[in-house]
């Protein structure tokens, strides 16, 4: 989980893929219109980019994606206005 300013971003990895949940001041931010791009590198330095798409509520996801534990992930959200961008960094547990 990362807090950038007032925005709380929770990145969840599972066997199904990757999900991102967005909140602001304890309220869910509708994911409609928002896009997210994850960038990470594997142990041999190969770069992967994954686009997450809105699902419902405050959730975006990418199915079938595996991010190894320990990976450093750079996340960029493009908000519903299509121009405003918010960045955050994660380390996958």
């Amino acid at each position: 989980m990362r807090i950038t300013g007032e925005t709380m971003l929770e990145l969840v990895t599972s066997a199904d893929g990757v999900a991102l949940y967005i909140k602001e001041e304890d309220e869910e931010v509708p994911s409609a219109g928002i896009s997210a791009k994850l960038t990470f590198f594997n142990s041999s330095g190969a770069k992967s980019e994954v686009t997450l798409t809105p699902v419902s509520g405050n959730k975006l996801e990418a199915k079938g994606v595996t991010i190894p534990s320990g990976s450093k992930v750079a996340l960029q959200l493009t908000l519903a206005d299509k121009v405003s961008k918010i960045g955050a960094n994660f380390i996958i547990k």
Partner: protein
Amino acid sequence: MMIIASAITVAPARAHGIYFAQRATQLALIYGVGADDLDAVKRLPLVQNISGYDAEWNPIPTKLRAAGPLPLVDSESQPTVVAAVLFNGIWSRTPEGEWLKKGRDEVPNATISEKNFKYAVHIAGPLTAPLRPLPGQTLQIVPVDAALPALMGQPLKLRVLFQGKPVAGARVLTDFVNDPDGKPIKSAADGSVTIKVRNQGLNVICAIFDGPSDEPAKADKMEHLATLSFVLPHAPE
């Protein structure tokens, strides 16, 4: 009768720098010094270069987008490092102390004429290797190690590079925003300085170095002013 006189001292443009900082959740290019945060959009035509890099130093397409008075960084994916170069022109100081945006060829009695270049590098995410010399950053401050300290007050060893090589005698300010008049530390023969990180928040470190002029008829020297900015996160609320 009471006479009130006041004077407002305006810092000459050459004292200003560029750096990156978060504004309304987004990364902006700031033009200013100390608490002065000036109209950077007006100065966008002076920006010669804006670039972003991922954690493996691959370039990421990056541009600046004007949003009101702020140029915001607009990259195709989240960069680990962002950098910019701004050429502020040639300035001459008259014997009366006035700064004019003209060269010595137009102000022959100038006490000083100089070309002003501003550089900015921002570390936006964790580095997997030490910051490397970046294209276009004629003067650049690089942390010696990849990892930054976690807490303010901890030491940070830096190296100042000029044209990619360590340079002695660069004047380093440890807090360009909150202590712009601080006593500068000079870089050693190997370009190094060790500072204590000033802020649990935004840190903007500045280095100034005078290099030879490439147009001696117009400018006596080139003043290079470089900033390195990064954020140490605060404790969770």
